[in-house]
């Protein structure tokens, strides 16, 4: 991948100059999807194995993308348990030669919340089989540490349930995950606005993943670009060392000023 800047995102030894991942679902056409993805500046595009036919080069999603520009990250969206996710991942490798997998195990279609137990079990097996695993997970610091310990190359905690566009509802737990993690933290799911993405990056997230908010915007291409800028602004702010919020005003030192009265 490109080394266009001096602040690359490094995942499993691969460098990415962009810190936004984009999903391919929910767009009104493959053409608009491809244009939005281009406008986002992303270098990592994820596609659901249930939606794409990886054995077919004319698949409407795959054929619309210039795959020389992006790393294609197949995901196991729709898998209800570890076994289903494993079968999908193995299919992706056997048919498409994909070794990187975005692991999603979501047993209940109503919430699409990730199953921590099945995700962990599937990750263990996939890593043993040599896959590079990027797991979608709830914002659970304990689980994040365990997934990191078994060799996941990122953790991808949700900001809010998939498709809700509700922003950083799990902020406190995300902060703990960011604080403790040695692997990149990619905030995944629930980001509805570029400001949500910027806030994630300001907190120190390494990247974000956005799909619904771009795909269903009135102008997905403009929204993709807005997210790109939001991510860049947030990252720059994080690197610049933002002034910390203070819980009380600091205009003077009313409590300790007397210590200097006699100086």
């Amino acid at each position: 991948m490109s080394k266009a800047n001096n602040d690359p995102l490094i995942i499993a030894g691969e460098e990415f100059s962009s810190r936004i991942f984009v999903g391919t679902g929910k767009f009104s056409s493959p053409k608009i999807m491809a244009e939005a993805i281009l406008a986002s500046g992303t270098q990592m595009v994820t596609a659901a194995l249930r939606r794409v036919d990886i054995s077919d080069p004319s698949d409407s999603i795959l054929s619309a993308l210039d795959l020389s520009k992006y790393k294609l990250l197949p995901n196991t969206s729709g898998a209800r348990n570890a076994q289903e996710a494993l079968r999908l991942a193995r299919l992706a490798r056997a048919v498409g030669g994909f070794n990187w997998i975005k692991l999603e195990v979501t047993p209940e279609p109503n919430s699409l919340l990730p199953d921590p137990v099945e995700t962990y079990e599937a990750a263990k097996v996939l890593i043993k089989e040599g896959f590079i695993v990027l797991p979608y997970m709830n914002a659970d610091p304990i689980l994040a540490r365990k997934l990191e310990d078994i060799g996941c190359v990122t953790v991808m905690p949700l900001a809010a349930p998939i498709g809700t566009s509700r922003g950083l509802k799990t902020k406190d737990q995300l902060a703990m995950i960011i604080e403790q993690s040695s692997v990149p933290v990619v905030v995944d799911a629930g980001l509805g606005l570029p400001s949500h993405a910027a806030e994630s990056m300001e907190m120190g997230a390494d990247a974000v993943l956005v799909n619904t908010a771009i795909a269903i915007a009135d102008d997905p291409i403009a929204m993709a670009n807005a997210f790109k800028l939001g991510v860049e602004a947030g990252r720059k702010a994080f690197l610049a060392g933002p002034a910390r919020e203070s819980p009380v005003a600091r205009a003077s030192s009313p409590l300790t000023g007397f210590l200097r009265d006699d100086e």
Partner: protein
Amino acid sequence: MTGFNDIINRLTPDIVSFKIEASSTADVKRALAKSKPSVEDAYALFSHAALPFLEEMAERSRAITLKRFGRTIILYAPIYLSNYCINECAYCGFAVHREITRKLLTIDEAVAQAEYLSAEGIRHFLLVTGEAPRQCGLGLIGKVVKAVRQKAASVSVEIFPCGLKGYNNLIQAGVDGLTLYQETYDKDLYKKLHPSGPKQNFVRRLTAIEKGGHAGFRSLGIGFLLGLAPFRTDALYLALHCDCLSRSFPQSRLAISFPRLLPVSEGLQVLHNVSDVDLVQMIAAMRLLFPDAEIVISTRESAKLRDHLLPLGITRISAGSRTSPGGYGGACIDAESGQFETEDRRQISEVAEAVRKAGYDVVTKDFDPAFMDIGS
């Protein structure tokens, strides 16, 4: 676990109808003030009192659907395996007493139908049969599933009620979705409309979908036949049924259909008319109540109406449907042998074009057989 039959036994159509008609404007406003109305709000949402709020309901339905499903519509098509049937449904073209040409597809013929549809861009198949275990039993259906699934992204069935073992066998063969319409939730009316055959048994039909849930179908499709009972009452029962299934089987996605009775020659005529306004109210209310459910509209509706309904909450439509065994590719046995005559007679490509023109991507694959641990 409380089955839906226990619920329906405590709630007669008279009570349901009374509660719907008693709903006030304030009840509707209260329901719409919630980010997600509860199933108790269904009485208000299906009532006359909700009619002045139809545009607001439609707009909310559209917005919820966009968020959950995006700008996409899945295309599917039925494959009729057989029109043999031992039931005597008053409204159905396959009823036992009707003098039509009966046909049972061979496995090769079924595969040819799947190949035809696949070449036209449809990979979600719904296998349909009448109830005739001697001609088209579960064993044969399982063999057909195994044969056609090579051409399919997804195979669902709309067949007679089965037991848990039968459904397990179908899943093992490669079926991921089960569709079973109750026709009407009014037990007395049901009895009149189904005078003979195993379909007489209301409870057998009602409880079968729960067996499907226990077996683990990924999609559970339900609905009632629009035009039999007063629609508001049946729609309310349908909402309660959806609520019951979604609580009992959270791992299965609900698929809600609104099949409209299209009278066949010398068959039952519409008993209670359902207008387009009524249909829109049902679709929007169901979407507000069940944000994650698939909502399905078939070719029973006209092309014009279907095009207008697309943005209101629909996620899945059939296209180019033929309702007789072997109907695709010009092999139709005769004009009278279908289950009903479709209203939207556009070719699959024309439907796909209309979907794109409405601003939606046509999804031909939204599942993969690799999800399933299916036998060979």
